[in-house]
């Protein structure tokens, strides 16, 4: 079981980053972005298509990341232009529509679960070290390091740079930020593009473990949302921890034969438990206010 939990940590680092991207998009541009992983999957499949054609893997990775960033930026620009004054629910609904459209296009272009699985490059599959019977693969360390690096870098960028401060101001008071000269649409497109590129990289990292079809990878949005909920769509370190917890839970469930086939339910269980846990106080208060 410990081996499975360790293996789960490698996905956990990726999940943490996906959760982090959800939190950042929500905090900085006030959108719950359901289309995020579909955009990342699109970039990942651009990359794998290019490597299948014989292009150098690093160049293909760069082109994939840029294409995901560009696609995400276009969506961000569209939302900033036409939905800036709308409620969060409306903006989320727009991203749900984009998710459905992108998934349909992706499955059409790259194939479904049974026909579209691709061989993603897996340069980090070798073990780093073995303790007793527990094997720790490189992918665990790379994934964890990437997650911690991005979390720390984003935290520093938000608090130590002028752009970061402007992003904080924008997230707190979007209208006021604009009237003091902060270019909200430009910054919003920057956030969307950055999130698109990071999501693509994370998807490339977790694809060898999860299976390489478009639908499965685009569907990672449910895991990303569960992880973001652990951090209450706000707290970056808690989101990081949430990703690792969800990864470990998935790893554990994979090691028990009787529940292995229900592994995909883990994110929804996490969402359910968090919704129940967070609403218990409201129930208590309501009962006592009568």
């Amino acid at each position, binding site marked *: 079981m410990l081996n499975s939990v360790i293996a789960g940590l490698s996905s956990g680092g990726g999940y943490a980053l996906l959760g982090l991207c959800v939190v950042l998009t929500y905090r900085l541009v006030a959108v719950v972005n359901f289309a995020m992983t579909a955009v990342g999957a699109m970039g990942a499949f651009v990359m794998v298509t290019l490597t299948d054609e014989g292009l150098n893997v690093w160049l293909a990775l760069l082109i994939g990341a840029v294409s995901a960033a560009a696609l995400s930026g276009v969506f961000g620009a569209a939302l900033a232009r036409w939905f800036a004054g709308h409620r969060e629910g409306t903006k989320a609904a727009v991203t749900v529509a984009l998710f459905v459209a992108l998934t349909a296009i992706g499955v059409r272009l790259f194939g479904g679960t049974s026909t579209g699985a691709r061989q993603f490059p897996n340069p980090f599959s070798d073990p780093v070290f073995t303790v007793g019977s527990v094997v720790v693969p490189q992918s665990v360390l790379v994934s964890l390091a990437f997650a911690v690096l991005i979390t720390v870098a984003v935290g520093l960028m938000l608090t130590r740079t*002028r752009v970061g*401060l402007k992003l904080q101001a924008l997230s707190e*008071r979007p209208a006021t930020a*604009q*009237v*003091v*000269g902060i270019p909200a649409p430009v910054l919003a497109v920057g956030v969307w593009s950055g999130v698109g590129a990071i999501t693509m990289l994370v998807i490339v990292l977790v694809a060898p473990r999860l299976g390489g079809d478009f639908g499965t990878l685009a569907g990672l949005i449910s895991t990303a949302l569960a992880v973001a909920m652990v951090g209450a769509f706000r707290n970056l370190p808690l989101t990081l921890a949430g990703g690792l917890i969800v990864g470990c839970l998935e790893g554990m469930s994979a090691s028990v034969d009787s529940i292995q086939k229900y592994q995909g339910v883990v994110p929804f269980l996490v969402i359910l438990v968090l919704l129940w846990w967070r609403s218990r106080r409201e129930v208590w208060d309501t009962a006592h206010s009568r």
Partner: protein
Amino acid sequence: MTAPALALDGVKVNRAEVPVIHDVTLDAAPGEVTVVLGANGAGKTTLMDGIAGLAPVKSGTIRLDGTPIEKLAPYKRARAGLGYVEQARTTFRTLTVEQNLVVSQSGDGDLGTVYKLFPELDKRRTLQAGYLSGGEQQMLVLGRALVSAPKVVLIDEMSLGLAPMVVRRLMGTVGELAGMGIAVVLIEQFANLALDVGAHVHVLRKGSVVFSGPCEELRGDERRLHRLYFGGPPLSAAAGADPAAADSGGGTAPHNGSDAGKTESELE
């Protein structure tokens, strides 16, 4: 005559697709405080939002130093030299005093000028804006407008919820801003305080300008102000008021700055 720093011509502004401001024409000269008065719901804040770009201008032109800005995004208007002090002390609460100023700083904007004008802020540079008192928050919002090196500053109800002593202090600062050559457009609930510091006044009723003229014409004349606000004589004086001067409906008052300088009875 000095060319206006801000000039509105036939401006119409909608709020949620409902017309609120109708054909407003007014100017604000550099180095002067231009006061905009009116009852609650007259459209003062909508007018300011329209100038700043937060509410859509349906027609008419807004010129800042002669350049039309009505089609620009709000941040581009700010960068062109339009500062806006919104209602309700809109600080960025999680940022420190200094960070609030830094995110707004542009061009020739200088933090030192703000700290000189408001020494209270200098002592609290590293404190989060959310922990400042109401007066200090208002100072910070004024300072934030100042560090963007503005040509025009719009100030909307800065006295809201503040102690009279603080309001008087801030009114003095408004005069100082004008002394720096900035055109200040001031909306204020305390009409007499605003008229004391202002040079010209425009009174709005139901989205239209019903009076434009020098502040001294209205200074201390509460009865006339009341009639301009509500379109009729004050209730207590209704019996003795001149019926010819009273507005019959209040909704059809003539409106636009081409009538600047006329009295309200001329307008009506």
